[in-house]
């Protein structure tokens, strides 16, 4: 009996021309989004790789320069796209792509896609994630809103119950039938995604990527299941199909449109973001309290030099076995980058507090939970962005210190004219970035995992309990 109910739902959905049409549209959109996502991934990735190669080439083949000139010349970190970001662009279009790495200074990451777009981009982007998060739930609602109400309206529910099946069995059977249909719509696209991922030579296929993909798909399956059961429960609680449908659409609008926006805006209102201008001014004031490598009149630099004389037991800076300029620069870089790092962490902390509101709201709204999780698996969430910024900063710091070390050891004190050939620069490794592993990503996802499991539990346990109590007529 249970099997035949499931089969009936499956077949009647397949026979429903309107549902079929909608499914085909969603499927086509999914395929289109996959192709579009891949294309955009390749274009942006290529652009950034080329840019990175170009600056690396410039650096390695630079004209003869004084090491500190080289430190000011610096380098760039262009953020590579993470492999799975073609499924979910996440925040990628709203984060900067080009970061100039120079001595003494942490720069902002510039040229986000959004800054180069008209307000059109604010309407959302065509990605696989957008369809999975927003459109499939609508399709599910359309599929399931009549699960019980139709049986009630035609009087077949009583007939079924008189056959000796329980309400709970009927519900499970319906959920099973609907799940099969949703799988039928989603599977081809997910299959294509996996196939493209496996067949493309551009992707470095490894266990990490595979695991990310599996978790990505898994989270969406849980999300769809939550929506299916939710729709069946709402259908059971309503007498009429139209009221069930309107309630479900109301839930969709609230959770997919209104709540996410309200959460992000609330976060920004609760925790004020300091402007870059203010942050720079604060950094400037604090850095002014530390050694300045460029100011010969600086007292702290003088004290530092005095210490050096004592340490090496020599009478003048010229007699030192190392170049004091380089050491002063190194000390200054160490102190200033600490100040920068402190303020960077403060800013990131504020952003994280703002974002946490949306994370906690995931408990109220599975859409937020799955959105957060999906971006993370795709490597396009806030945490991954911060990771890239930190890696770039580490590279910047090491680059500056390497060059200071070269100045300290290969250039004489007060010598500003000696130039080293690019043989020296060639030995410095270029900036390389690879996304952190899936384990690292999962650590930031505890909230969303809990939220998704909570919802799963809620619909399965509480939802079915509610169905048990539903009025049959």
């Amino acid at each position, binding site marked *: 009996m249970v099997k035949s109910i499931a089969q009936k739902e499956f077949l009647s959905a397949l026979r429903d021309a309107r549902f079929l049409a909608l499914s085909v549209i969603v499927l086509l959109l999914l395929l289109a989004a996959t192709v579009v996502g891949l294309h955009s991934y390749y274009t942006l990735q290529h652009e950034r790789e080329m840019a990175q190669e170009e600056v690396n080439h410039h650096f390695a083949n630079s004209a003869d320069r004084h090491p500190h000139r080289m430190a000011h010349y610096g380098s760039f970190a262009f953020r590579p796209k993470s492999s799975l970001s073609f499924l979910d662009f996440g925040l990628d279009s709203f984060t900067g792509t080009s970061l*100039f790495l120079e001595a003494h200074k942490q720069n902002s990451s510039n040229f986000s896609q959004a800054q180069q777009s008209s307000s059109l981009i604010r309407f959302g982007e065509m990605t696989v994630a957008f369809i999975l998060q927003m459109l499939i739930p609508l399709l599910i609602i359309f599929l399931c809103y009549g699960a019980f109400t139709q049986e009630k309206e035609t009087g077949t529910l009583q007939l079924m119950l008189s056959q000796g099946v329980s309400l709970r069995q009927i519900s499970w059977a319906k959920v099973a039938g609907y799940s099969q249909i949703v799988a039928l719509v989603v599977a081809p696209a997910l299959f294509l995604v996996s196939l493209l991922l496996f067949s493309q030579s551009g992707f470095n296929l490894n266990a990490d990527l595979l695991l990310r993909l599996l978790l990505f798909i898994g989270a969406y399956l849980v999300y769809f299941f939550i929506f299916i059961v939710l729709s069946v429960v709402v259908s059971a609680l309503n007498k009429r199909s139209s009221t069930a449908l309107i309630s479900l659409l109301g839930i969709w609008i609230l959770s997919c449109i209104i709540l996410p926006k309200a959460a992000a805006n609330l976060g920004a*209102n609760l925790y004020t973001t300091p402007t870059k201008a203010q942050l720079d001014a604060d950094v400037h004031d604090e850095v002014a309290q530390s050694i300045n490598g460029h100011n010969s009149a600086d007292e702290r630099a003088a004290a530092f030099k005095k210490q050096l004389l004592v340490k090496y037991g020599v009478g003048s800076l010229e007699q030192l076995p190392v170049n004091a300029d380089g050491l002063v620069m190194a000390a200054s870089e160490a102190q200033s980058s600490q100040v920068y790092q402190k303020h960077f962490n403060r800013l990131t902390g504020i952003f994280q507090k703002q974002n946490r509101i949306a994370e906690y709201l995931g408990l109220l709204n599975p859409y937020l939970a799955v959105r957060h999780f999906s971006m993370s698996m795709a490597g396009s969430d806030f945490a991954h962005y911060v990771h890239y910024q930190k890696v770039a900063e580490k590279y910047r710091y090491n680059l500056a210190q390497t060059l200071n070390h070269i100045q300290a050891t290969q250039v004489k004190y007060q010598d500003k004219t000696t130039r080293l050939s690019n043989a020296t620069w060639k030995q410095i490794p270029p900036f390389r970035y690879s996304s952190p592993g899936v384990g690292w990503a999962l650590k930031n996802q505890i909230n969303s995992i809990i939220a998704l499991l909570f919802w799963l539990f809620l619909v399965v346990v509480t939802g079915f309990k509610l169905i048990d109590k539903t009025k049959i007529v």
Partner: protein
Amino acid sequence: MNKFRTIIKYEWLNFRADKGLLLITLLTLITGLYGIYYGTTEISRQRQHLANLSKITAHDVENMKVQFPGEADAGDVGYYHSTFAVNHPDSWASLSLGQRDINPYYIKLRLLNLQSQLYDSDNINPLKVFTGNFDLAFVLIYLFPLFIIGLSFNVFSIEKEQGTLPLLLSQPINLSLIVAAKLSFRAFIVLGLAVLLSLTGMFWAQVVPDSRIVLWLGAIVLYCLFWFAVIFLVAALQKSSAFNAITLLGIWLLLTMVIPALLNVYVALKKPVPQALALTIKQREVVHGGWDKPKEETMNKFFSLYPQWRDTTQIKERFVWRWYYAFQHLGDVAVADLAKDYQNRLKERQQLVENLNVLSVPVNVQGMLNALTGTDLLAHLAFMQSATRYHDALREFYYPFLFNQVAFTHNDYAKEPQHSFTSTPQISLVWSGYYKLALSFLFTFIVGLFIFKIRFLNLK
């Protein structure tokens, strides 16, 4: 006319008794007020930040005076001292924030080469800008259509489903009159709310009361009417309430999300922006290459652009500021074409959207509102141009000090040019938007009328 009034009266009684309808009306009102509150706080925060910039500059000047207690070399001042180009919001900006949260509304400038400073972004939480603004424009463009759908999806089908249709038809009234009255009643509520919220927003934000009041209200009213035309079209098909709800939501989704997202893809494909990274790389190469070029070559190039400084003393020193600033400027000159291409490409992108937005009414109206409040990409590009001119003015202010080798005194800080720019609305864009909006409305309405004529005549 009496019959019309009677129907309206009963609709009103129905509406008053329906808790669900009252609830969504109340919800819409609350979200609208929140949108106004959010928009105004956001803009007043931006204003506060902008006001704070002059304090930061004043503090910076104080620091400079401590660092250089006596007369200073203008070269040092140009290097260490910074000032800001500021983009003040138009008084209307609170109602539609547009791209103001993504594009920086101030640019920190030193005398160094412009192209390495012009594109610095502000501290932005990417998740927040990704989610978007909950401003009044969002409520009107996204949520009002849902409100309209919620009020009217079953405007006609419910009579059928409740079995009241035969009763109605047995009365000596025209069917068109019933539909017209029922839709008019709903339109009255929706437009009343939209106008009320808009006026509240204008009052709250203390906008400059100019012709834009009419332009804004006109756009909003026409936009709501467009959605009523959509309702009319779907109702004319005479399907069930459930079908109507799904179809209308589908249309909403198509117009507010799917089509815009597809357009976005098309624009990105058609008009890529490779200039950004190219110019950023090239400007660094040229500027840093300046150190290694013979000074005479650099200076001659510079003098061909600024012949008025040609007869100043020849440079023999290893380092001198006027040479430094000369090659900084030559860095800008070297990428001037790329920078221009970059700006033009962004304008082309905007233009392409203008051409295509006839495909999605919400995109069109969003563009109209952003143009009206001076918060769109074009307003930002105008600000960048103004900042460029400001940088020119700064250079012109410092060049006499540098090339005539005049010392920079503490009094000279106050003489440094200041910058102020206020975003201006693009009224011509609003008008072309109107034209398309009216066209969309008429088209939908006429198609609806056509279907209505065919289907409802059969009914009789």
